[in-house]
């Protein structure tokens, strides 16, 4: 705990000695930037590789004969379609199909799964999973791990040279390299890469082994945000919330076709109804004209000044070379190329609806 009541990362001393500048995020004191700064960190990740401490995110192990059933109740998920080692991006929905959180679920055994949840929602997610587990034979166990992400085109080579054999992994698959470890080929930057969870006792040694490679450097939360924004990936709490459903959030692809007209998951009927009705607004990419960033919270208008939506995340895309944003607009204006305007401190900044991602994903799909 810091003086501000924030939680400290287990490897905080390592970040301090690396020169990190810290800031608050989701109740944690997080490294925001390191001495190279957000621009260089961002570009280095896309060019070589970056190491991110994402230990603020929470892992839950779900185990028991009803583990699959529990997940299929909590999420629009078909666990029978998940083979061992396969990961799936899914959503924790409320009864109105509002998005409580977005999660990655990985099958580790016949009756065992790993769930990765967002830091800010971890307590809520854990409580909800445990409540839904009542009457089922499935245990929900939060794990204490140091969680690192290695992202970028050199990530696979760096991991191999550090002595971890992950060559068999393709995008959205995972395994347990040794007891207490959990590793997937995934991430949140749009680049190839891995996420590795290890017990604290193994963490500093792993970080040191990885960083022995000159191509890898620590990357802070500021660049993590600009990387995910360019990659068009949602930040829960900004781009998706309990007030948005998967249809307007343009996340229907994450829901198996077999469950779209009905399923046993929480929010199933609200979701099908939203799908049948069609969304009034839709999540889109936004490319501001010029150099001025348009930030989350800005109102979007049409030429005449009528409100047509809002920006939910925005900033500058160092690799894109221009400002990038994500937001919601009326469905009639949601096609790429539509010119709208953002109100930035009273100035009408022209913005074009843009396809997502802004920078192409470079996942290793095998």
């Amino acid at each position, binding site marked *: 705990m810091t003086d501000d009541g924030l939680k400290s990362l287990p490897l905080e001393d390592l970040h301090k000695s690396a020169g990190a500048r810290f800031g608050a995020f989701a109740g944690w004191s997080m490294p925001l930037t390191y001495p190279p700064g957000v621009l260089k960190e961002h570009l280095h990740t896309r060019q070589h590789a970056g190491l991110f401490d994402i230990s603020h995110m929470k892992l839950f192990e779900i185990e028991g004969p009803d583990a699959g059933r529990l997940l299929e109740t909590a999420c629009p998920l078909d666990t029978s379609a998940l083979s061992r080692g396969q990961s799936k991006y899914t959503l924790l929905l409320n009864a109105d199909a509002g998005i409580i959180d977005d999660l990655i679920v990985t099958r580790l055994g016949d009756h065992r799964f790993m769930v990765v949840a967002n830091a800010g929602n971890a307590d809520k997610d854990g409580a909800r999973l445990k409540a839904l587990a009542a009457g089922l034979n499935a245990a929900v166990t939060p794990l204490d791990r140091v969680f690192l992400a290695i992202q970028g085109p050199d990530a696979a080579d760096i991991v191999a040279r550090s002595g971890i054999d992950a060559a068999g992994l393709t995008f959205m698959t995972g395994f347990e390299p040794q007891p207490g470890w959990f590793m997937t080929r995934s991430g949140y930057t749009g680049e190839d890469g891995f996420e590795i969870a290890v017990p604290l006792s193994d963490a500093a040694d792993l970080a040191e082994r990885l960083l022995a490679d000159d191509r890898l450097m620590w990357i802070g939360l500021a660049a993590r*945000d600009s990387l995910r924004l360019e990659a068009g990936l949602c930040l829960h709490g900004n781009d998706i919330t309990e007030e948005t459903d998967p249809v307007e959030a343009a996340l229907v692809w994450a829901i198996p076709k077999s469950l779209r007209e009905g399923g046993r998951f929480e929010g199933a009927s609200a979701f099908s109804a939203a799908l049948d009705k069609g969304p009034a607004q839709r999540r889109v990419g936004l490319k501001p004209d010029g*150099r001025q960033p348009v930030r989350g919270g800005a109102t979007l208008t049409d030429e005449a000044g009528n409100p047509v939506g809002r920006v939910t995340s925005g900033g500058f895309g160092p690799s894109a070379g221009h*400002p990038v944003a994500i937001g919601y607009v009326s469905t009639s204006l949601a096609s790429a190329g539509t010119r709208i305007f953002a109100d930035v401190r009273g100035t009408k900044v022209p913005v074009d609806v843009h396809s997502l991602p802004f920078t192409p994903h470079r996942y290793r799909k095998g």
Partner: protein
Amino acid sequence: MSKTYFTQDHEWIRVEGDTATVGITNYAQEQLGDLVFVELPEAGKVVKTGDTAVVVESVKAASDVYAPVDGEIVEANAALSSDPALVNSAPAGDGWLWKMKLADTSQLDGLLDAAAYEKLIA
């Protein structure tokens, strides 16, 4: 002969006669990180102490830079339109933000000198 003053908000004001050049300090640019955009004022704009004169935008956030004293903006640093990173690389030099004609030079007495500013950020 010019004299440089500082503010609690991490600006510097270099005064020659009744005109001043204003920028942010090295400490401020370090805190802000890499700038990607500077919203510059129009020449002729009249500002009061504490008014937002310039908005500097980093990758992550927008921050206001306030007028340290009353006056009229006579020039904005046009070089920042194409190269906002000048504020990072040369905050006290080529990365200056605006020049202003001072309305009341006695307001300068309320600002910090270099020694007091060094103490503030120490």
